[in-house]
């Protein structure tokens, strides 16, 4: 029976490296994708993911959020992304994020069209302000609730609502300029119910 995160943390504190290695294997995908979506650079995301895990290892003794290790780790990644962005202050190239284009190059044309649309959407996300990009990534990549996003960023929930609204508005305008219309709601269709 696989151990829970808290059990692995306790084993790591007892000096078992393999327990922390198990934690890394469980959460490295989440950490890497979040860093990659925020920073827009695969190499920087890998470096930041490594740094995030080392930070988490050093701070394991102070881990108090029992049962919320992913959220705790996500907070570390967010803080490191903010620091990295503040230190580097460079434009996001988003060049490496299109690496999977090779997979779709040989596929049907519809997939190429989807890939092109995704590329434009990601470009629009990259053009957002850092604060707006953070909330978009945490909402649509990590699929966090407003309360979790607010806790992760250290801002009120109302701030998260406002930032998400403005981010979506800017994305919508930018995609309209690029000619990306998205899926149109069929005439007569009901409004989707509140929920995911």
């Amino acid at each position, binding site marked *: 029976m696989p151990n829970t995160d808290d059990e692995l943390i306790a084993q790591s504190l*007892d000096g078992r*490296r393999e327990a*922390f290695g198990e934690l890394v294997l469980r959460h490295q995908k989440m950490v890497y994708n979040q860093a990659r979506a925020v920073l827009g650079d695969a190499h920087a995301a890998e470096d930041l993911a490594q740094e995030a895990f080392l930070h988490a290892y050093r701070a394991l003794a102070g881990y108090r959020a029992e049962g919320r290790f992913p959220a705790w780790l996500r907070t570390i990644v967010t803080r490191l992304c903010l620091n990295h962005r503040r230190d580097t202050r460079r434009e996001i190239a988003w060049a490496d994020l299109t690496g999977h284009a090779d997979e779709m190059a040989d596929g049907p044309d519809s997939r190429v069209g989807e890939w092109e649309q995704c590329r434009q*959407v990601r470009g629009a996300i990259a053009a957002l302000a850092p604060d707006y990009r953070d909330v*978009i990534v945490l909402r649509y990549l990590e699929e966090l*609730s407003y309360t979790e996003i607010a806790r992760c960023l250290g801002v009120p929930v109302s701030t998260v*609502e406002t930032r998400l609204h403005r981010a979506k508005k800017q994305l919508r305008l930018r995609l309209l300029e690029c000619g990306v219309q998205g899926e149109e709601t069929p005439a007569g269709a009901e409004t989707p119910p509140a929920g995911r």
Partner: protein
Amino acid sequence: MKCEEWEIWISAYHDDALDPERLLKVEAHLTGCEACREYNEAITALEPMLRSAMVRVDAPETLFGRVMSQIPEPVGASPRRRPTLRPPRGWLSFGLAPVGVAICLLMARQPPDSRVVTAPTVESPASTSRPEAPKAGGSTRRSVKPGSGARPSSGAPAPGASPSKAAPTAPPEPRPELAPLRRLNQRRPRRFQDDLAYDPSVRRHRSSSRRHARRRSPLLANNPAPRTMAPRSAAYSGPSAPASSWLSVVDYVLPRADPETSAGEGTVFVLPAAETYAATPTRYEY
């Protein structure tokens, strides 16, 4: 409420982040506002694109190796939870505070071993009426009064005084070691009052303000017969001055009060410890 505010609620409505009360209000508003309905449809079309663009990829294979290479091997003791120094709670927080204050006061009162004071070699005869126990490392007050033969003699140690420790015979004056430094900042009247050689019958400066004091100082005064003193660069010998004999430093740095010219002026020199002369320039307080 304006449409801008409704749009914020509509965006949260799509993310299932509204409480039941606001949810009912948004649904009711959507039925009556065309602009908000269009915005709602635009958000509905945007969200699938955002989710599809957020593609999750696998982490690089080298990431695990890079992380584990930085994790040190456990050597002996395990990295257990480090004891955090939390402040005491409850009655302990009150119980330890006076203990800490008492320890600080005791440390402040203890004379440092490095400080050596040649005790009351400059005690003037008039000052012996109020005996003072010179403290090792502390400062010693020296008062120069007219007509009192106040020029100190350099070779008259106080009876029972030793250069390495305070005079045991003299009654210990309950003055902390830092008191002389504090006196530098005090106003002149208070210094005169606390001065061991203070004699109320002696005429002193009427004005206690620093501005008037500076006028009378030998450095800045416009008196026709200014006191001459050795230039500080020559007199201030610095670290080479013998720390054990603070009197020599006094003779070089401070002007000798001439009873004839300084009639009615009681000058109080507050001297810090000898080694501080080497570290800091001399300060004159009048």
